C-alpha cells in the first residue's frame, strides 16, 4: 500500500535550503509506489540551485518508483517553477541501442562503399579537370597552380633536404659499422645511392609532404566546408574539383618529383659526409663509387613512385576535407585521418611498385634490371 509523505521546504530554497530538503527526502524510508508531496507554502524565494536540488529529488524518486509532487507555492516561486517545469519532469535515462554484429557489419560495408564511391567520383572529376578540361578550352587556374607549386614545393625544400640529409647520414653511420669487420666500408656509398634513388628519397619526401601538405589540403578544404564556402562555390555554379582540386593535384604532381630529386641529392650528400669525414675516404673515391652505383632505372623508379605518391596525397587530402562534419572538431579529425590515410597509401603504393619491379623487371638485385 502506497504511503504519502509530506516535506515542507524552508523559506528560502537556495543551495542550503535545497540541500536540507534533499537530506530530508533521503531520510524518508520510501518504497515503490509511495508519494512525496513538497509543501512550498513557506517558501518565499528560490533560485536556480534550489531548482536543481528539486530536480535531483525528482530524479532519485523516479529511479525508486516514487512520485514527487509539489504545491502551495506563491507568487514568484510559482512562476519560476512554471518556467523550469521541463527540467523537473522525471525522464527515464535513454540508453543508446547498440547495433547487433550483422547490423554493424552492414553499416561498415555501406559506409565503405559510400566513401569509395565518393572518392572514385572525386578522382574522375579531378583527372578530368586536370588532364582533359584544359584542352577542351574549359579553363585551368594557372596562377593558382603556380601558387600551389610554390606553397607545396618551394616552401618545403628546406625541410625535405634536411630530412633526407639526416637520414643519409644515419644510414651511412649504421651500415658502416656493420660492414667494418669485412673491410667493405666503401660499399656504403653504393648502398646509399641505390637506397635513395630507388626507395628512400621518394618515401621520405612523400612522408614529409603528406604531413605538411596533405594535412594542409585537408584542413583548408574542411574549414571551407564548415564555413559554407564550398556551398557558396557550388551555389555560384563553380565546380569545386576545377576550382580547388585540379590546381592542388597538378601542383603536387609537379612539386613532389622535384622535391624527390633534391631528396636523393641530399641523402647521398648525408652519406658522403659520413664516408669522407668519419670513415676517412677521399672525396674522389667516394664520388666515383657513388657514380658507379647510380643507375638510371633506379632513379626513374623513384621518380615514378613519387608521381603516384603525389596523386595519392592530393586526392586523399581533398577527399577528407570534403567529408568533414561537425565543426572545428571535425576539421581536426579529418586532418588526422588524411595524414594516416596518406602514410598508409604511400606504403601500399610502395609495396605495389616493389612487387611490380621485382616480378616484371626482376629488379630485386642491383644490376639485374
Amino acid at each position: 500500500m502506497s504511503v504519502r509523505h509530506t516535506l515542507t521546504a524552508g523559506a528560502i530554497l537556495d543551495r542550503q535550503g535545497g540541500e536540507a530538503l534533499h537530506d530530508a527526502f533521503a531520510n524518508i524510508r520510501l518504497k515503490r509506489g509511495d508519494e512525496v508531496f513538497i509543501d512550498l507554502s513557506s517558501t518565499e524565494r528560490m533560485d536556480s540551485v534550489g531548482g536543481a536540488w528539486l530536480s535531483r529529488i525528482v530524479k532519485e524518486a523516479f529511479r525508486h518508483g516514487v512520485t514527487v509532487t509539489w504545491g502551495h507555492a506563491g507568487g514568484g516561486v510559482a512562476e519560476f517553477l512554471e518556467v523550469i517545469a521541463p527540467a523537473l519532469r522525471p525522464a527515464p535515462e535513454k540508453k543508446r541501442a547498440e547495433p547487433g554484429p550483422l547490423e554493424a557489419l552492414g553499416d561498415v560495408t555501406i559506409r565503405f562503399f559510400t566513401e569509395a564511391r565518393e572518392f572514385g567520383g572525386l578522382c574522375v572529376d579531378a583527372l578530368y579537370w586536370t588532364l582533359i578540361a584544359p584542352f577542351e578550352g574549359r579553363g585551368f587556374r594557372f596562377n593558382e597552380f603556380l601558387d600551389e607549386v610554390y606553397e607545396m614545393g618551394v616552401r618545403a625544400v628546406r625541410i625535405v633536404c634536411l630530412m633526407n640529409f639526416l637520414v643519409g647520414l644515419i644510414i651511412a653511420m649504421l651500415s658502416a659499422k656493420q660492414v667494418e669487420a669485412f673491410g667493405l666500408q666503401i660499399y656504403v656509398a653504393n648502398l646509399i645511392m641505390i637506397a635513395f634513388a630507388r626507395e628512400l628519397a621518394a618515401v621520405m619526401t612523400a612522408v614529409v609532404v603528406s604531413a605538411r601538405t596533405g594535412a594542409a589540403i585537408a584542413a583548408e578544404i574542411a574549414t571551407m566546408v564548415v564555413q559554407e564556402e564550398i556551398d557558396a562555390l557550388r551555389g555560384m555554379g563553380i565546380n569545386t574539383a576545377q576550382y580547388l582540386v585540379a590546381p592542388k593535384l597538378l601542383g603536387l604532381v609537379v612539386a613532389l618529383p622535384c622535391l624527390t630529386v633534391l631528396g636523393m641529392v641530399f641523402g647521398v650528400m648525408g652519406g658522403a659526409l659520413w664516408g669522407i669525414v668519419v670513415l676517412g675516404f677521399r672525396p674522389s673515391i667516394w664520388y666515383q663509387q657513388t657514380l658507379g652505383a647510380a643507375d638510371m632505372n633506379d632513379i626513374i623508379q623513384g621518380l615514378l613512385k613519387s608521381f603516384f605518391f603525389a596523386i595519392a596525397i592530393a586526392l586523399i587530402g581533398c577527399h577528407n576535407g570534403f567529408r568533414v562534419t561537425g565543426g572545428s572538431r571535425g576539421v581536426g579529425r579529418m586532418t588526422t585521418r588524411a595524414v594516416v590515410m596518406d602514410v598508409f597509401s604511400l606504403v601500399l603504393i610502395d609495396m605495389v611498385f616493389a612487387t611490380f619491379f621485382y616480378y616484371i623487371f626482376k629488379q630485386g638485385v642491383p644490376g639485374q634490371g
Partner: protein
Amino acid sequence: MNAPLSHTGKRTEPSDADTIIEVRDLVTHYGETKVLDGVSFSVRRGEVFTIIGGSGCGKTTLLKHMCGLLRPTSGSIIFQGRDVAAMDEEELAGMQRQIGIAFQSSGLFNSMTVGDNVAMPLREYGGMDPRLIEPLARLKLSLVGLAHAYHYMPSDLSGGMKKRAGLARAMATDPELVYFDEPSAGLDPIMAAGLDSLILNLNRLLGTTFVIVTHELDSIRLIADRVLMLDRGRVIFLGTVEEAACCGVDRVRQFFERRPDEYIEQRAAE
C-alpha cells in the same frame, strides 16, 4: 563562484544609487584610429541596458572592454568597486566568472553537446556539488526553452536555438550581469521576438542585469529600459527609449526614424 540570485518574481526598479558597472571616460585606439572617445555611463542593477549605433561605431568594442576582453588606452571600468582595466590576469578571470557573455555567433563548442556546453562553466569553476551540475544545466536550458536539446550537438540547432543555448551557458552560474552581443542579428522576426521576450522574462524572474548591443529597433523598443547611443566612438545619447524618440539630436532621430544619411544633410541645409 558567484552567489546565486534569489528569484522573487518582483523586479526592483533600477535606480542610479544601485550601479552595477560604471564606465568612466573610456578612450581606446585600434592602431592610429580612435574607436572610443571619452565614453562615460553607468548601468543600474536589474535594468536592460542597450548600446546602439550604426555599424562600426564602436558598440562591440565597448562591450569587449566591459567584459575585460580588451584593454583601453585610458579611462576606467568600475565593477564591484574595482577597475577592470587595471586588473591583472587572475583578477580579470575572477571578474569574468561573475558575469555572463552571450556572443553574436553563440560561441558554443562544437565538440560538446548543448548540455555539456551549459554545464562546462559549472564544472570548470568548481565549488558546485557534482550531483547538481546536470540538473542545473537542464534547468538553465528550460529557462531558455531548450529543455529537449540537452543531448543535441550545436550543429543540430538552428541560429535562434544556438543563441538561446549561448544565453543558457552565459547564465549557467547565475551571474548578476549578462552581456549579449547582437541577440537578434540574423534571426527571423518571430525568432527575434521570442528572444526579446526571453530576455525580458529572465530579467524579471531572475533580476539579471542585461547589457545588450543591438541595432534592431523593434527589440530596442520592446526590451530596453535605457539606451546609450554611440556615434563615431562618442556617446550622443543616454536615456529611455521614449526620450530617444523625441530627442533633438539629428543622428538619434535619424536612427530611430530609419532614415538614410541624406536626412542629416537635408536637416543641416534647413
